């Protein structure tokens, strides 16, 4: 009973300490099964959200720190060494026990393990690897493992992590050198990028040779904090674009800066900018799936509009492409129409092989008609002249007042 109480105490501290990392994906792992075998766990490439907390975020993995003792003093971080928070440290065996217990109860699909920096980068990375090794080798755990990679750790240790983990991540946190110097004095853009490069190399090598041991098959991701410093969306999106290009990152996560207890004066103590974060995710999705470039979504410095989504914003400033005739346009251009997603675009193309597209088909495909109306032509429909002015249109399609203060 005492042991359980201790574990509960530690868990409450080390889950609280880990929640500011927003990544929760459990997707992208290769197919693994434990059917009829010893061991535990399966993956099939699809992620599962086993629960949602009242902040609306998904719980797919047990997301904890091995310890929240930390030598670094990153101003935005609740675990910085000057922060007056309770501290705790799990043994690797305790993390293994929790992971297997939660997994059997079907509460999670795996583990996302990170840590404060203790003793040295190498020592910390070794500890993380030890947990993953115990799970994979002693317990034959085939569920999902995401390991945080410590930027300054020896490349050998990163290579070892890649053999056990499905996903690795190095958080860039702040996209400019200037912000890192000011807010995270122990971190450097160059070592963060070196670690990303090491992971990318590992992935490339594993893919090149059929018999090579697997290396982080679900790839790598990173996180940028939004609103802890003055960096604008344009810088954030251009940084994301180059990370996708240079290191083939699977995902960039955007984390609206949440106020932390005993907040230092260097970072804001304000409600997290959730709507701004939402617009960044939308823009990121347009870059990953729709072929938009950062420079198309934001042509100069500044932030994405909050009152309309980035695809609508792009369409309003590029009216020369519209209206688009759904019966003849290229599929890629159809997907750029506000209110019509990639899936609907594909379905429209399939449908128009059978018949002429009519406006009611958009209703049936559950497209957002209000948004699409000014931008499409169908067999029986043409937008009226009233839609000519972009500024009037924007007012009409705006989603209303921007985010309210939360307290």
């Amino acid at each position, binding site marked *: 009973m005492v042991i359980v109480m201790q*574990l*509960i105490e530690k*868990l*409450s*501290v080390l*889950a*609280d300490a*880990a*929640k*500011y990392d927003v990544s929760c994906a459990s997707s992208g792992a290769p197919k693994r099964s*434990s059917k*009829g*075998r010893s*061991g*535990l766990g*399966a993956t*099939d490439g699809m992620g*599962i*959200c*086993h*629960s*949602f907390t*009242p*902040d*609306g975020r998904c*719980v797919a993995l047990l*997301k*904890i720190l091995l310890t929240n003792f930390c030598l670094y003093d990153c101003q935005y971080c*609740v675990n910085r*060494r*000057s*922060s*007056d*928070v*309770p*501290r705790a440290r799990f043994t690797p065996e305790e993390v293994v026990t*929790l992971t297997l217990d*939660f*997994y*059997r*109860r*079907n*509460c999670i699909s795996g583990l996302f393990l990170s840590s404060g920096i203790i003793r040295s980068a190498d020592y910390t990375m070794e500890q993380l690897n030890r947990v993953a090794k115990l799970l994979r080798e002693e317990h034959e755990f085939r*569920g999902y493992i995401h390991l945080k990679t410590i930027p300054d750790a020896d490349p050998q240790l990163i290579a070892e992590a890649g053999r056990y983990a499905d996903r690795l991540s190095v958080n860039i946190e702040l996209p400019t050198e200037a912000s890192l110097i000011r807010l995270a004095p122990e971190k450097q853009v160059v070592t963060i990028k070196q670690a990303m490069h090491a992971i990318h190399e590992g992935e490339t090598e594993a893919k090149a040779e059929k018999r090579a041991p697997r290396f982080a098959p679900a790839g790598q991701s990173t996180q940028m904090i939004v609103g802890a410093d003055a960096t604008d969306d344009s810088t954030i999106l251009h940084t994301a674009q180059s990370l996708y290009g240079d290191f083939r990152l699977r995902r960039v996560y955007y984390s609206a800066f*949440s*106020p*932390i*207890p*005993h907040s230092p004066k260097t970072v804001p*103590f304000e*409600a997290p900018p959730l709507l701004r974060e939402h617009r960044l995710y939308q823009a990121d999705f347009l870059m990953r799936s729709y072929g938009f470039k950062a420079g198309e979504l934001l042509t100069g410095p500044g932030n994405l509009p909050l009152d309309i989504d980035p695809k609508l914003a792009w369409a309003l400033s590029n009216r020369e492409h519209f209206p688009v005739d759904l019966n003849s346009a290229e599929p890629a251009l159809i997907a750029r129409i506000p209110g019509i997603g990639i899936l609907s675009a594909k*379905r429209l193309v*399939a*449908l128009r092989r*059978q018949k002429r597209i009519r406006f009611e*088909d958009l209703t*049936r*495909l559950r497209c957002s008609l209000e948004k699409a109306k000014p931008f499409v032509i169908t067999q029986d429909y043409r937008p009226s002249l009233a839609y000519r002015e972009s500024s009037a249109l924007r007012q009409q399609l705006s989603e209303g007042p921007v985010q309210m203060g*939360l*307290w």
Partner: protein
Amino acid sequence: MLQVRFDGRFDGWREAARDLLLRGIAPHHVEWLAGDEAGGLFGGHVAPEPIEPSSPVRIPRQLLAELETAARFRTADRWSLLYRILWRVAKGDQTARLVGDVDGSELHARIKTIRREMHHLHAFLRFSPITCPSGPDYAAWFEPAHDILTSAAPHFAERMGLHSWLIATPDDAVLWDGDVMHYASPCPAIWRQLAQTAQESGAELWKTYYESTFNPSRLNRDVLQNNLPVRFWKNLPEGPLIPQLMSRARAGAQRDGQAERVATRPGKRIERPGQA
């Protein structure tokens, strides 16, 4: 109106539908009666005259898979929609399968709902360890909105390795003995009791985790309810915590991201390296 009675399962429907198709009986002449369902007032057993001579019917395999999935959707007209689509495709009208079509749109909406409900089961089902020596290692009680248990359950055989487990629902149940899947409909009372009793115990660690990983400064009830519909809360160990955490967040805990049980404990600053 021709009343067609069958066992209420997809294979039974398929047999009956093939027969009707061969006899050239159009969908608007058919009333489907699953199991011992009562028929409509104007039903009769007199088959209308076949409209055209029968010829062998070729149905794409993928359409059958789609129909089988849609057949899991609980609704009064589930079998008549399927027959209407089958009929139209058999007559060469491929649009009946497409999302842009009136029937196709309904078919795909049902398939989507079924997939989502299977996903709900994979996500929100909770196993509890069973202490009773003659029972399986784990048991779960789940209340699906559609008939998805048999298609959703094999997922857990992949996850649970050599463990045996039981999933009981208000209608049916599956037991995996480590080797073979046993299906029972209706759910045996003893299985139901085993699953519901097991549910009541434990999960303290999981509840602790749930509470601590929640960020009160990001409270967002709408997104939570869209993703985790309220009907699932009562069977989740963390369910009772949800309203508590929401009201505490609104009453002031929303100030910053920290969990309350952590905030009340003494903190510890760490010396700068080299200055200790």
